[in-house]
């Protein structure tokens, strides 16, 4: 975020505060003695454009992320899941993601899916995410803002999207090569490919480089 962008924001009305639904699973919650708890590993905060909000990550994602030793959280932005609707549009969704991030005890990785990827990309321009993961992004802004704090970025798209214009634009903006998965955008939450995809993301997060 540039100083100018910050000044503009401080002179714009803040979106109305809502009580946000945030689902959390910590490694210790799993009662699984096999699971490693790595207190140094950054927490992960997920967000999707899907109306189910945090619940979309509940079945598979949060458990598996926690199983890998990380604090796992997902947020429902206003109007999703159990978070009440409130006006404000994209600006307010981004506000919700940033507010969820600062409520996490330590600097978090932001994972966004679908339209949620657009909100997390915008949130990462205000909050120094530990890493930014965009999964099957939709409706990304035309010009992607530079993330603050220089986080690592991972782009994950379906094979059919690998050559698309948008994918090209994102890889150019962040200087990264996409990771691809077979199937459609919804398949990231369930179905045979979902676990493998998630494990690929987790192993990218664990890479120390």
């Amino acid at each position, binding site marked *: 975020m540039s100083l100018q962008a910050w000044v503009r924001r401080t002179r714009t009305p803040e979106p109305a505060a809502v009580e946000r639904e945030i689902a959390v699973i910590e490694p210790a919650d799993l009662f699984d003695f096999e699971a490693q708890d790595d207190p140094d590993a950054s927490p992960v905060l997920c967000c999707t454009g899907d109306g189910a909000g945090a619940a979309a990550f509940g079945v598979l994602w949060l458990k598996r992320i926690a199983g890998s030793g990380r604090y796992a959280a997902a947020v429902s932005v206003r109007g999703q899941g159990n978070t009440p609707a409130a006006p404000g549009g994209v600006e307010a969704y981004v506000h919700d993601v940033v*507010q969820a991030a600062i409520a996490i005890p330590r600097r978090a990785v932001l994972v966004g899916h679908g339209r949620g990827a657009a909100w997390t990309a915008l949130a990462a321009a205000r*909050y120094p995410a530990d890493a930014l993961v965009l999964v099957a992004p939709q409706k990304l802004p035309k010009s992607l803002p530079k993330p603050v704090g220089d986080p690592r970025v991972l782009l994950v798209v379906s094979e059919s999207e690998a050559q698309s214009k948008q994918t090209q634009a994102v890889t150019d903006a962040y200087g990264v090569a996409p990771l691809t998965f077979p199937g459609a955008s919804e398949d990231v939450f369930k179905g045979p490919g979902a676990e493998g995809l998630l494990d690929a993301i987790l192993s990218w997060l664990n890479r120390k480089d």
Partner: protein
Amino acid sequence: MQEYSSQAAYDRGEAVCVIGAGASGLIAVKNLRENGFEVDCYERDTVLGGLWNPQNQHSPLYPNTHLVTSRSQTEIPDYPMPDHWPDYPSAARMLEYLKGYAAHFGLAEHIWYGSEISHIEPVEGSRFEVVVKPAAGSAARRLRYGAVIVATGHHWVPNLPSYPGQDLFRGTVLHSSQLKDGSRLRGKSVLVVGGGNSGIDIACEAAVNADRCVHSVRRGYWYLPKYLGGEPADYALARLHNRPRWIRSLLTNRILKGHRHLSARMGMEAPDHSHTDEEPIRNGRYLEHVGDGSIEHRPEIAHFEGGEVAFADGETVRPDVVVFATGYKPKIGCVPAGLLGVDGESEYPKLLARMFSPRVETLAVAGLIEPGVGVLPIVHWQTHAISHWLNIRKGDPERAANFRQQVVSESAQYEVDSTGISPRHRLAVDAEEYLAGLVRIIDTLEQEPAK
């Protein structure tokens, strides 16, 4: 020269030393780490948060301290406060916020507590030797760093006036930073001196707790409430900057008019400065207490006589307690004065763009400024600039030299025209102008290097 231990200094290579773990020090550590620097932060006390932590010895907090700047104008730009907090959080919330910031970004592991820096000194050109004051019985430690950022704050040394006859006064005399507990005012006749935010807040405490409250100020101020036009006052005023200049001054006058009129009607001196020249007072209760007689507003003290205090207008009062809310003296004892541009007659540092040492390129000060708006965001952008500068200096000396020239020319702009009445306002800047200068400095630093 002082005697330092004979053992050789421990060399920390290119690591940066940050002095102080208040808000400014914490923000500096975070931004330096983000730019890839190793950092050691030294804090003389045993806690972080600086003046917002009541456990810090000599913390200037008084009963019921709340922010005078609103949440959205005070929060650190990349780590907002929770949006369900009130518009003007308490000192306790401010501390919770700073602790959260430190935990979130893992800053604690870089802080050395109980470590007062007694002296720093340039060595080998642009490097620094830093002396940590010895704990009882042990030797002083000396370390070498690539750069130093001073973040020691400027609210630690009380500024105390003295009036004729004061030494014979037998009542209680306190500085605002010593008040701590409001019960000391209960049932007493209290005289509060000073028209800064401390004096106004304490007068309002005394208005409801003391038997009688007399408040003395030596000139005219802007008595603004915390809300204007249905919004937090600082936000309402800042928002007007979105408008063209002439409409802005029209609207500003319109929202300030009522309060100016009211204070004039109550017989207060008109301010001799614009409301952005120095920090305005932000307390909506003050004029109401004057209006209902629970605060008696008086001009400057003329002299003390026995148990009595006489004011310039001839009125007198017999106080049990006198609270001097007369502000602080900036003092950076651990840095040789010349490195901060302190010259003979003034004890105030003269820094380039209010942050860089005019002498050594690797010395900077964070937070030595009174912008009249939230201090934390200003310090964020200062330390953002300082960290980028240190990075460029390492990698690209030619660009660094150009940048240096720009900072020198920028700096000329923040010479504040002192009203001549009070040296205290030498740390004041017009936030709008200062931020515009920071934008130019940061833009220069972030330009793609010329190929």
